[in-house]
């Protein structure tokens, strides 16, 4: 199970990148009319988050090479788009990465008014979502009943939503001093997704969830010793959720609270409570992904 760390890192980083894009950049663009000119601060913030998105997806692409035993043959992976979801996953990942980079360059060079940017961003969002869809379909194999359920797709999309919203909120700080603003809604969205993630995990996790699939005998070795990982994941997510709620309750407009000192909050930086909350949720997602791969041991390993 621990041998699958490159896949854990690849899927988590890839999902976080799509989540950040879909939860900050794309909706932000939709909120703006094509003729709106961006303030320098807004452009700066967007560029930082955008750079982070590109960084996550580039890291994901690099980490994916570590699970190949012949990485120098990796350029052949697009050879079977006709029937392999793995080929399609790589195709959409590369498309997402290229489109995000193009859109970044457009904003960086000040081309923020044209419809072309909106078209590029829409195509990026579509490629990102298709990346998640192909990543889910890739594991939903008939030969692997523990993965061949809607929960695989649900958990991947929930990870993207949770990590995307939390990472964006953490990076931007999103102090709730300005109710109604887009940024201040991010932590609320993040808390909703973390709570949903916990609920889905309790109900649907294969083998352990209340209504989760219980695999029967097959020619594949049964999973071992995953119970601690399952409960550890739930504890980490719940810890992150509680801390984030505490941080939000403390953070009244104009005060320090969980978002750090007032100047920091004004500058858009999360404080230590929110940072710990984000780290706990991230660790919870990582534990959940190790659990996911642990459900299907490879024979002979």
């Amino acid at each position, binding site marked *: 199970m621990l041998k699958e760390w490159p896949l854990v890192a690849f899927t988590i980083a890839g999902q976080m990148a799509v989540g950040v894009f879909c939860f900050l950049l794309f909706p932000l663009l939709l909120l703006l009319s094509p003729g709106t000119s961006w303030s320098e601060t807004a452009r700066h913030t967007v560029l930082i988050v955008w750079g982070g998105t590109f960084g996550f997806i580039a890291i994901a692409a690099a980490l994916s090479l570590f699970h190949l035993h012949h990485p120098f043959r990796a350029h052949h992976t697009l050879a079977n788009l006709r029937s392999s979801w793995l080929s399609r996953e790589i195709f959409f990942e590369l498309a997402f990465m290229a489109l995000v980079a193009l859109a970044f360059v457009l904003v960086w060079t000040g081309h923020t008014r044209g419809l072309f940017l909106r078209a590029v961003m829409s195509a990026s969002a579509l490629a990102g979502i298709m990346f998640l869809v192909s990543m889910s379909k890739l594991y939903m194999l008939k030969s692997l009943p523990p993965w061949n359920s809607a929960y695989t797709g649900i958990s991947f999309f929930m990870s993207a939503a949770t990590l995307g919203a939390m990472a964006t909120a953490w990076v931007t700080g999103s102090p709730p001093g300005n109710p109604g603003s887009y940024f201040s809604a991010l932590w609320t969205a993040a808390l909703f997704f973390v709570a949903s993630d916990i609920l889905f995990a309790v109900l649907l996790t294969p083998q352990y969830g209340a209504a989760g699939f219980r695999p029967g005998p097959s020619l594949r070795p049964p999973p071992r010793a995953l119970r601690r990982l399952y409960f550890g994941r739930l504890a980490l997510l719940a810890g992150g959720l509680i801390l984030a709620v505490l941080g939000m309750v403390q953070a009244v407009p104009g005060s320090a609270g969980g978002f750090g000192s007032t100047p920091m909050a004004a500058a858009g930086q999360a404080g230590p409570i929110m940072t710990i909350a984000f780290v706990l949720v991230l660790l919870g997602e990582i534990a959940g992904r190790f659990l996911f791969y642990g459900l299907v041991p490879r024979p002979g*390993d």
Partner: protein
Amino acid sequence: MVTQYGFFFNAAACSGCKACQMACKDRNDLEPGVLWRRVYEVTGGGWEKKGGVWVPSVVSYNISMACNHCEKPVCGLACPVKAITKREDGIVFVDTGACIGCRYCEWACPYTALRFDARTNTVSKCNFCYDAIDAGGTPSCVASCPQRALDFGDMAELRKKYGDVRQIFPLPDPAQTEPALIIKPHRDAARAVERAAEVANWEEV
């Protein structure tokens, strides 16, 4: 001309001696831990009360399993680099020169036929001893079985000789891959589910 080679396995005759497994390892010079043919020991049951008497209700049989050179090889469909191909006679091959070692096919195959080979850093699997077949010979597993529990040939011929049973507990639904495999079930296989049978020798396979 053969259009689809396949295996016949007689579970009723197999004693679980693993001569097929070892002959395969020997012929293909496989590393320790890499098994192209494996013998699963399926066991279950215990004791049950019939009237006033406790009687044994044990079920136990063996399944010798390699790549089934499926008519619908899902491993090949899943491979991102098209390193898994099918010959005209139905034998499914791994091209180790093209394989990138992503090991995705290991997950795709419900028979766990594909095994990672650390020597080549690629997956590997049964190649039906194609060179022996091409020379008019016999796959080593078939040749080595002292019980004559294994046979091979064209699937059309095998069906005529042995029928068309392709699944016993705990093999997957054959509709998934259309395996080139005919089985004569052991009598215990019919009671395996009700007696909660399972594979007992995971460490070996």
